[in-house]
């Protein structure tokens, strides 16, 4: 590095303007300022995150109780609970997973292992990445138009199935992308070894590729599912109810969900409902923390092996 050399080079022509600033002291001072600036910028996000978590914990944790977890919505904020919403979210989670995982893995297998390099394949690929950027509320409108209205006689209209199918389509691009990346990471020698022994494509996939891609695909899928648990907007549009005083009986039942219950609490003017909202958020965040921990645990296990 010839940092000190620039000062000397400039002495020849005093009138000559140069892009190089000759004073190294000022430049190094600016460097220090800039270093602090980029560090502070990186920390801003983390500080806000910390403030957010502390604020919610302070508001919500004292309100948590067994009665809150097992109680039903009520006009009295002190007696309101999230039991039907919690069960609704679990129902949604299970059905969303049952629908989106086979579809997503199947699509990823086709695109990565079977699809010929044609315009149709490329169209599907562009389409998948574009779907990942569509706002979630648009998926709500899709679910409302197709699952609630058009297929209403089958899905039961504003039912758990309609909500779960909407969420499944919402996270499908993420599942496809995660699974494809896991498949792409497997060396071709695995496939060629299988083919050389006379295995068909499907036998190679079932016996080798799927087991090897599983941890990576599972990590991405669980992260996508945890996004689905936290989604509010599409569920409001497909008609998740805020005031449910019964436990969902089956997939065709009306339902509520944790984020919907929180939205209901937060949009009421009374202070006590705001606190109930904070308590609901704590429950939601604990559920998300659990699912994300599973994903991180899987990833670490996978990375150690690789």
């Amino acid at each position, binding site marked *: *590095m*010839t940092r000190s050399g*620039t000062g000397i080079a400039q002495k020849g022509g005093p009138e000559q303007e140069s892009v190089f600033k000759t004073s190294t002291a000022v*430049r190094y001072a*600016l*460097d220090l300022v*800039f*270093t602090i600036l*980029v*560090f502070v*910028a*990186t920390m*801003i*996000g983390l500080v806000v*995150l910390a*403030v*957010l978590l502390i604020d*919610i914990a302070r508001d919500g944790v004292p309100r948590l109780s067994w009665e809150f977890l097992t109680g039903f919505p009520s006009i009295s904020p002190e007696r309101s609970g999230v039991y039907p919403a919690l069960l609704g979210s679990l129902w949604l989670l299970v059905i969303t997973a049952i629908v989106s995982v086979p579809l997503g893995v199947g*699509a990823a*297998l086709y695109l990565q292992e*079977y699809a010929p390099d044609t315009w149709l394949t490329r169209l*599907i690929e562009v*389409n998948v*990445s*574009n*779907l990942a*950027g*569509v*706002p979630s*509320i*648009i998926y*709500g*409108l899709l679910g409302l*138009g197709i699952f609630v209205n058009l297929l209403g006689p089958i899905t039961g209209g504003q039912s758990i199935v309609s909500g779960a199918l909407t969420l499944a*389509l919402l996270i*499908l691009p993420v599942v*496809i992308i995660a699974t494809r990346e896991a498949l792409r990471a497997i060396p071709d020698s695995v496939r060629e070894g299988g083919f050389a*022994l*006379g*295995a*068909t*494509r499907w*036998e190679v996939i079932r*016996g080798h590729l799927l087991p090897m891609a599983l941890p990576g695909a599972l990590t991405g899928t669980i992260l996508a599912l945890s*996004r689905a*648990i936290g989604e*509010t*907007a599409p569920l*409001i*549009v497909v*008609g998740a109810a*805020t005031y449910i005083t019964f436990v969902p009986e089956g997939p065709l039942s009306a339902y509520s969900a944790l*984020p919907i219950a*929180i*939205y209901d609490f*937060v949009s009421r003017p009374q202070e006590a409902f*705001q606190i109930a*909202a904070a308590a609901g*958020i704590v429950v939601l965040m604990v559920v*998300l923390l659990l699912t994300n921990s599973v994903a991180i645990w899987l990833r670490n296990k996978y990375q150690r092996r690789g």
Partner: protein
Amino acid sequence: MTVEARRDPRSEAGKWHRESRARHFRERAIKIVLAACACVSVLTTFGIVFVLIFETIAFFREVSVVEFLTSTTWSAAFANPQFGIIVLISGTLLTSIIAIAVALPVGLLAAIFLSEYASTRLRRWLKPALEVLAGVPTIVYGYFALTFVTPFLQSTIFPSLTIFNALSAGLVMGVMIIPTIASVSEDAIYAVPRGLREGAYALGATKREVATKIVVPAALSGIVAATILGISRAIGETMIVAVAAGNLAQLTANPQEAVQTMTAFIVQVASGDTPTGSLTFNTIFAVGTTLFIMTLILNIVSYLFVRRFREIYE
């Protein structure tokens, strides 16, 4: 052949030739099933376009396109309704501009720190920690904007701030978008060849000069892509604005006042008891179509910019 053997241990002999026609048939069937899975994603796009067009046409049978695009009043839920989408677009743009004003500088500087300054170990911790910001459910951000940020701003900088306002919603939305901008920008910065940096160092540039005058200009198309993607996220973001921005459809540029965004309007109508098939109900699809077109254009432009920086350096 482990799979075959495990499945049927008795067929040890002649396993390769036996029932080859059946195997062929099974292979074809599986391929078709998997291709059908891939087609679901295409069907999803068709479904979105079909639903939006179908319901939007129903809307425009009753409301003229000219009124929709030029009226400056939005009062869809009232008697004698007026449908000026400009009002909702202005609310959307106001919150999105505030969000980008936060997320672009912070996200870009964070990307510079992560790629140019942080050690590998620090980076491995910071990146996932920043990405947690993108994983927090948006309803949680909405609560935070309404019950923490607004009272905080009222008691410190803006005493005249109303309870519901575009400012808090936009600021919190900006924090949510930081990881998007930081991670796409960082990819672009990472793709800048080492030789460019070393050349600048050899000419006597300092680390800051390399970062701001060499690396950032070289990664500019990626940074533009990140910004456009961030704007697209902000425009489509729903729950923060639905909770904290106030649902008051008015044409204003004052961030201290309440506004209504396109997304918040959809939530307001959908969570009320508007009967299906009524004009107000069809309105949410017309608004959804506008939103979809806007985000689609932004996503395509962003994609083109990303492709450009890939072409230059990869």
